[in-house]
């Protein structure tokens, strides 16, 4: 905003007290006030003032109106840490907005703020916001935003910018300003805008929320101009400002004719298989999937991108993934993310050969998903392009009711008889999954370092009678929860990071815990030490805001995935007998004491626990703390995987 306009506002402010008062909002809990009368005699202005502007904001600020806009969007929380580029907005959020809807959640790193949004949205089924400093804060937040983009999770990212170079203060404000803030994250956000007026802010903010929460969901970014935030709303403008009402928008669903074709293929198939990854989007998703699977008596293979199906459902054949897919003559892939990988496999060998797994030569693949509805050119999260036999663009869960009806309409009595026989065989096979997993975990029960199976099952023994939720990834703990726990609620887990950017689990779990807090759920997060060290500051956030969560640090004292990789490289080159092989991959010498770190952040913590016999009691004490509404951490010295 130019100096000319500022002077106009000043004149309006000093010459017309009436209009300034009329700008006071009735929507804010602490509306802007005029200055109280002072008993100190006034000093001539030209002796005290450095410029011709009044020292007090005359009426309602632009950022007050921005908060009015944000409050229409049902955003409960805004994770942030302070930054001068959004100081007006922060002050309005706390004082004008009463620090409610959204409530300011203080974090110690912008990456943690954004990752909290990621975890929160998958539990709350709606986005929260993060507010990050211009340029530098956005750069910090960028990896977590990319993870959420790759995971197709909504997030409202707010940043600030001192756009007017003529009023920008020297040094810091120049370093933190940009011609185009959003360029840092444009490759992995669904939309962004840097509105140049308050009306533009209202329009863009509502549009951003609308876009973020419509499938395919993804993060959006709004840059709030510094002058727009800090300046008084010009007289007469507020009455003209308008906040568009957000209406519930339906999600894109599959073409009805193609859905009929899909049903025909599924009903006619000898061995149909349903493959799911990022399929389930609402609490109703698993129930719809089970309805279709039971109609067809078809096995389901789950890659756990969301909580898609109960792990102990007899048609869940994920433990037999390869034989199940090999036997299929039709695969229905619901939001699979990587379709190509269903029939191909790039081996980690010299030359990276494609070694296709055994598949039925007459296999037909039906794809229903929204992956192709949002792609960007640069970062390659789109996975390899794959040809399929029937491709239906649309949200898989939204398409499911019409697919179920189409299947029902085509099933005859003869089909039912055939399907029942198929289902009986599947049930007989799956009845052995649990016992086999129990046998497997017994082999590592007394191992030292503490095995991941022991850690996972001692935790299970302490939460099985609670209303629990596990928001963290499990591929680094050998998927034990999916093999041995009883996961049957739509919120029991929420999938992973999306883009495998390390440092997701620790803060995203806290975001999930924030969403779980109102439900009184016990949130349990098993996080690797490598992941934890990317965002230890979230422990302070958990303590400061009293967000109940139990962290178990899977402390294998290494970047273990990379341990395996460096061994592979060295073995190929016949150099793995070098005693310095693990330089750069082990996190030891000194060993890190995670309990002490947690205690330093004010959190209850125990550890390091090295003896498996000590683990159950430590976890029990941690769970007790969480049930009392506190966060807690247990440091478990554990095996690699």
């Amino acid at each position, binding site marked *: 905003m130019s100096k000319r306009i500022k002077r106009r506002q000043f004149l309006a402010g000093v010459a017309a007290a009436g209009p300034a008062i009329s700008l006071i909002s009735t929507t804010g809990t602490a509306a802007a006030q005029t200055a109280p009368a002072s008993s100190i005699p006034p000093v001539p202005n030209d002796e005290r003032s450095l410029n011709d502007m009044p020292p007090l904001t005359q009426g309602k600020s632009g950022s007050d109106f921005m908060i009015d806009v944000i409050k229409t969007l049902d955003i409960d929380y805004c994770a942030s840490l302070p930054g001068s580029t959004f100081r007006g907005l922060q002050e309005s959020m706390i004082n004008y907005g009463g620090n409610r809807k959204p409530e300011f959640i203080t974090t110690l790193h912008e990456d943690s703020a954004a990752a909290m949004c990621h975890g929160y949205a998958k539990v709350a089924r709606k986005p929260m916001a993060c507010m990050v400093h211009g340029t530098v804060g956005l750069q910090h937040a960028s990896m977590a935003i990319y993870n959420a983009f790759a995971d197709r999770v909504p997030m409202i990212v707010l940043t600030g910018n001192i756009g007017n170079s003529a009023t920008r203060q020297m040094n810091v404000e120049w370093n933190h300003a940009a011609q185009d803030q959003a360029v840092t994250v444009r490759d992995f956000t669904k939309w962004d805008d840097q509105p140049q007026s308050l009306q533009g802010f209202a329009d863009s903010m509502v549009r951003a929320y609308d876009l973020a929460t419509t499938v395919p969901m993804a993060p959006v970014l709004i840059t709030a101009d510094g002058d727009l935030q800090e300046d008084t709303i010009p007289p007469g403008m507020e009455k003209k400002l308008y906040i568009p009402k957000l209406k519930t928008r339906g999600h894109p669903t599959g073409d009805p004719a193609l859905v009929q074709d899909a049903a025909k293929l599924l009903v006619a198939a000898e061995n149909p298989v349903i493959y799911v990854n990022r399929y389930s989007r609402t609490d109703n998703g698993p129930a719809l999937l089970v309805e279709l699977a039971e109609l067809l008596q078809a096995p389901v293979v789950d890659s756990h991108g969301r909580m898609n199906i109960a792990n102990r459902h007899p048609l869940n054949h994920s433990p037999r*993934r*390869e034989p199940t897919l090999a036997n299929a003559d039709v695969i229905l892939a619901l939001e699979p993310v990587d379709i190509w990988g269903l029939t191909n*496999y790039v*081996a*980690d*060998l010299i030359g990276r050969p494609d070694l296709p*797994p055994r598949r039925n030569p007459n296999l037909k693949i039906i794809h229903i998903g929204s992956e192709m509805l949002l792609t960007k050119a640069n970062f390659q999260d789109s996975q390899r392009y794959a040809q399929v036999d029937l491709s239906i663009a649309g949200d898989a869960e939204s398409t499911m009711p019409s697919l179920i009806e189409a299947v029902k309409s085509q099933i005859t009595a003869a089909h039912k008889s055939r399907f029942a026989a198929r289902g009986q065989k599947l049930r007989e096979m799956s009845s052995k999954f649990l*016992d086999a997993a*129990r*046998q*497997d*975990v*017994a*082999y*590592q*029960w*007394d*191992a*030292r*370092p503490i*095995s*991941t*199976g022991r850690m996972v*099952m*001692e935790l*299970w*023994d302490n939460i099985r009678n609670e209303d629990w939720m596990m928001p963290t990834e499990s*591929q680094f703990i*050998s*998927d034990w929860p999916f093999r*041995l726990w009883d996961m049957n609620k739509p919120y029991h887990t929420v999938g992973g990071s999306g883009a495998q950017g390390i440092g997701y689990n620790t803060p995203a779990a806290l975001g999930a815990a924030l969403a779980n807090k109102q439900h009184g759920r016990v949130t349990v997060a098993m996080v690797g030490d490598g992941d934890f060290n990317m965002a230890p500051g979230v422990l302070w956030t958990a303590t400061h805001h009293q967000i109940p969560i139990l962290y178990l640090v899977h402390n294998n004292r290494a970047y*273990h995935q990379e*341990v*395996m990789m460096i*061994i*592979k490289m060295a*073995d*190929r080159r*016949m*150099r*793995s*007998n070098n*005693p310095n*092989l693990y330089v750069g991959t082990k996190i030891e010498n000194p060993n890190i004491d995670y309990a002490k770190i947690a205690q330093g952040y004010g959190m209850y913590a125990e550890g390091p626990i090295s003896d498996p016999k000590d683990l*159950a009691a430590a976890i029990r004490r941690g769970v007790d703390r969480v049930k009392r509404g506190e966060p807690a951490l247990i440091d478990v010295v554990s*095996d*690699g*995987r």
Partner: protein
Amino acid sequence: MRRFIVLAGLLMAASSVQAQEYAPPKGDAHNGSALFQRFGCYSCHGSWGQGTGRDGPRINPPPAFPVVLQQLRTPRREMPPYVASVIPDQGVADIYAYLASVPKPPDPKTIKALQ
């Protein structure tokens, strides 16, 4: 990786008759334990050879020694090769002795957390 596990199992089964003709060589379990860590065997198979699901199969108790040796020298699928200049046959024998010394697992029915 899961296919590796299946193939490794088939390989072991197919070789079992032949393998019975070879007695395991004498090995030092203590040294084998150190080698198992040093060469990173634990990273995919777990410190007790218990297996880690998708990354490496259970090798506790170990299959016949010739099967282990063959898999190390000319591995199937994605396991990296360990040549004799890196782990001599005696080292393999020590690792084998270590895996054979790992305690037998308890009956899962006796473990409270598994009920």
